């Protein structure tokens, strides 16, 4: 049978799942879609081995991954599909934290903090001398990569002594159960557990800002908002009509489906630009293997179009 094989980020998974479900319904089961949850890194590794048609990613493809793909002569089309904000949360019983700066976050999370930064008052002296319990996604997830890059300045550069889970719900649970906890996760997970978690506004230089659809879309919630992507194998796009159909279906329905999946859609024009990019089979990454923290996707796409 015709199968579209997709794998990658657990963050992007709900969007892909929604698309896959609707697509299969629209095709009345003639085309099968599988969506794996291997994490962004895992997804790219399979993608660059040519095992899957589409890799979904919560960060742009990295330099290493670009090389890996090149080695196997895998060409890819990079398509932004949605925005996500990272929510930094604490336990509702935490009365002292009203906002955090990126510097605060760095102090907590940088590798040097391992084993030394153990209490809240080490971050700011006015905070209590209570143990600082950190929760975050596992090291193989795109969220982890993005957060470390935005906060510490280098992807995967993080202290090791925090409680990690690939399952964001487990993180939510961890923060709910521990008064001294702090964690970060996709905004959707916060939205679903609003009553039980306390959202912390982030001061990226322009004063504390809460993540929301608006602040994410207009770029003010920075640097902890990010675009989400899919990467389509060019060969598949060319040779497998079902893949092409799937991607087109995706881009056409993205505004509604991303919202249903609790993510923030890109502006309409961005989807049109992405569609164009796909039609032209434009390969390569706009990010040239590094993240442009805080840059709006729309601008990037436009920029790219102009430069051509």
């Amino acid at each position: 049978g015709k199968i579209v094989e997709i794998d990658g980020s657990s963050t992007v998974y709900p969007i892909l799942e929604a698309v896959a479900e609707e697509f299969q319904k629209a095709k009345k089961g003639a085309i099968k879609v599988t969506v794996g949850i291997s994490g962004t890194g895992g997804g790219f590794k399979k993608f660059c081995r040519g095992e899957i048609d589409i890799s979904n990613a919560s960060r742009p493809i990295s330099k290493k991954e670009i090389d890996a793909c090149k080695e196997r002569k895998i060409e890819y089309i990079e398509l932004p599909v949605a925005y996500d904000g990272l929510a930094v949360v604490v336990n509702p019983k935490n009365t002292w934290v009203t906002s955090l700066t990126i510097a605060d976050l760095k102090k907590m999370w940088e590798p040097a903090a391992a084993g030394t930064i153990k209490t809240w008052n080490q971050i700011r002296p006015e905070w209590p001398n209570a143990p600082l319990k950190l929760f975050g996604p596992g090291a193989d997830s795109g969220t982890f990569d993005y957060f470390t890059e935005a906060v510490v300045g280098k992807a995967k550069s993080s202290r090791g002594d925090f409680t990690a889970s690939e399952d964001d719900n487990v993180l939510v649970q961890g923060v709910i159960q521990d008064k001294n906890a702090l964690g970060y996760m996709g905004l959707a997970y916060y939205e679903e557990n609003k009553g039980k978690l306390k959202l912390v506004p982030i001061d990226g230089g322009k004063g504390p800002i809460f993540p929301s659809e608006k602040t994410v879309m207009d770029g003010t919630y920075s640097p902890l908002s990010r675009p989400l992507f899919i990467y389509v194998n060019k060969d598949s796009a060319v040779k497998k009509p079902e893949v092409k159909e799937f991607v087109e279906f995706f881009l056409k329905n993205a505004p509604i489906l991303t919202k249903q999946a609790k993510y923030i859609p890109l502006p309409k024009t961005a989807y049109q630009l992405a569609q164009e990019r796909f039609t032209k089979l434009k390969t390569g990454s706009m990010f040239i293997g590094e993240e442009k923290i805080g840059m709006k996707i729309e601008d990037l796409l436009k920029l790219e179009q102009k430069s051509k």
Partner: protein
Amino acid sequence: MNTKKIKERSIESLLFVCAASSIFVTLSIVIILSFESYGFFKEVPLFEFLTGTEWTPLFENPKFGILPLIAGTLLTTCTALMVALPLGLLAAIYLSEYAPHKLRETIKPVLELLAAVPTVVYGYFALLFLTPILQEFIIELSGFNALSPGIIIGVMIIPYVSSVSEDAMRAVPMHIREGSYAMGATKLQTSLKVIIPAAFSGIAAAFLIGISRAVGETMVVAIAAGMMPNFTINPFEPVQTLTAYIVQVSLGDVPHGSLEYKTIFAAGVTLFLMTLIFNIIGFWLRKRIREAY
């Protein structure tokens, strides 16, 4: 006559091949584990692996000290054993010496259901049900900790401990039991003074099976213990076990061939060797009871 013999021979050979296939399984385990971890130990010195107290293989500056994972494993295992060994042994004594025949025959299979519950179910039960209850009593208990999954694993392995110990106690021939009762002993005296000493090696074997199960349990700790490679002996803190680490990495589906991929095999070898020792000691002990009567 001759075709009959050929038939017999070929059937025997076929059956032998099937029996020997178990060796093939073990060999594949050993080969695959050692092949992949050989690659690992080429890059990470064994000494560092065995003595390092930090395990952060997936980070920017990876550290490959297995001790935190071993500590986590031992911590959850010990907690589990503190639950399973006494309860399992007491249940075994009750079932073997006290319970009426009918009751025993009903309870035993029901008790075995404890081991049949999917471990994912147990995992969330530990995290969402048991941990909050425990936190009522132990304030310093983290949301993720070694204690709660340890207790749940303990409950889960009760049937392994109780059923093998019970078998061992019931293997003590009736005439020995009669000898004791004929002296006017009560059931308790008979159990403690005659049955348990006589079934000792079987009970020890049951304990070893329990240990081996507890060491190897995966999903419960992966969900409820916190995935935090923490070099600690405090059961109130989050920890990561060898098994949970393997699951964590598998959930991220690391690419074949990378160093990260090899780390799970290094952890796997460690796990395999740990259980191997327990399994083999347990095997000899069980064999001894079989030969005794």
